[in-house]
């Protein structure tokens, strides 16, 4: 049987960049570092519970860590800036059309409920298929499919509204600033 330390190191090396990306998509860089560290600490302590396909489990754990962190108002504000694009310096480096559209999409995403937003992000940004995304969201495949379908529809509706607005009125006012439910 593979020694515990070796098993964890293999898991860590394989998944660290992906878990880090997951956290960076949902939190400011300093908070994301904490999320990643806490997530892997949980994995280390509960290595026997980590399934063979570890990534959805790690995402789910990271989401809970994020949710705990987000109880701090300051970090909530950081998320608001991140989702609305105001803090995404890397994303705004080039202000071409594609970046403007990306900001618009992120703004629309920020207007969705936590649950809808997470469903979309798991698929579009984390690249999970339905079954793995459902495991990461801790729900059944069928429930996730419904959630994703609704989320797409909501995102399309929010985008349509934003696209119809004159530019100055597109003030970022996400309805809910908490990701990770």
């Amino acid at each position, binding site marked *: 049987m593979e020694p*515990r*330390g070796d098993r*964890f*190191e293999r898991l*860590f*090396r394989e998944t*660290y*960049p*992906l878990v*880090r*990306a997951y956290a*960076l*998509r949902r939190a400011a860089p300093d908070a994301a*570092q904490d999320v*990643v*560290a806490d997530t*892997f*600490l949980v994995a*280390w*302590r*509960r*290595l026997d*519970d980590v*399934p063979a396909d570890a990534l959805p*489990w790690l995402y*789910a*754990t990271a989401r*809970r860590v994020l*949710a*705990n962190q987000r109880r701090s108002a300051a970090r909530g504000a950081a998320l608001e800036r*991140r989702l609305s*694009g105001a803090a*995404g310096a*890397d*994303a705004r480096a080039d202000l071409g059309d*594609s970046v403007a*559209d*990306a*900001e618009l*999409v*992120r703004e629309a*995403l920020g207007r969705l409920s936590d649950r809808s937003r997470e469903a*979309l992000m798991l*698929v*579009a*940004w984390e690249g999970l298929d339905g079954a793995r995304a459902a495991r990461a*969201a*801790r*729900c059944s495949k069928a429930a996730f499919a419904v959630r994703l379908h609704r989320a*797409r529809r909501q*995102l*399309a*509706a929010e*985008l*349509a509204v934003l696209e119809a607005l004159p530019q100055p009125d597109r003030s970022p006012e996400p309805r809910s600033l*908490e990701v*990770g*439910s």
Partner: protein
Amino acid sequence: MSSPHDLMERLGAADPVARADRLSPDDQRETDALLERILASPAEAARERRRPRWPRLAAITALAAVAIFAAFSLLDSDDGRSPNVVARAVAALTHKDAVYHARGMGYMWSPVEPKRQPSPFVETWHTTGGRMHWKTYAAKNGKRGRLYTEIAGQRRPGRLGGPALMYDASTNTISASGFGRSQAKMAPGVDPFDPARALKQFEAEGRLRVAGEVEVDGRRAYRLVSDWEQAAGGATQRSEIVVDARTYLPITHRLWSRAPNGIGTARMVWHYLTYERLPLNDRTSRLLDLDAPADAKCSEGTYPLLRKGSLGYPNPCAP
């Protein structure tokens, strides 16, 4: 409006950290340092410490919600009075000639919804013989709002149904109903408004312990804790009932439910604004009856469906 395909492509293109899975040399150094720190941390010892942290965490949350628990009340400290306390609590909740009246509301946290989810406001009256009258209201800032539904009838422990009538305030309609399955396979006190049956069972099996004294709103109280127990569906559950040290009636009830994979733990806390034992007499027995308005409509078939069972009170839908 975009097609679903275009939409997901646009969303993918909006990923703010699309290349974050590539680590720079600096990132790689940080990664190695983190791995070293984690591997140096005591995995097994940390795992053992996790259990006692749950009651502490839950109690701290409850403190924030109701500001009642003293900080040092959270440490487990079984004492020599345990058998008496458990027996007295069970006795206090199983008086035959009593109507138990409770009012309160709960909050739930789950892995799916880590934010606190409030329950409706609930008011109940019940007897140990199975009579139950349950009213559900909207909860407005922790107080009772408008009535949603009420249900009254005779419960049959361990079985679905039990003759009962339900009143739906939104439609002003009475219909035949039944109570849900008894929580026979779950941990003690799962039924937050009638914990007696489960307490009695687990007292008999020796699976209930006193985990110390606490002070609640200036009142001395005992924590009755059932340790993690296997429940339906492979889940494990633990519950804690805080009972008044004078009356032995419940003040707070907490429940933890851990999913079979051991990861997702939901917890719920019920705060009783009232939990009192009234003498059973003509006046209090009427509190067990459905309290629908006189002009409430009866759904078709309400009377014949219930004719064979005994509601415990006159069927208002009788012709």
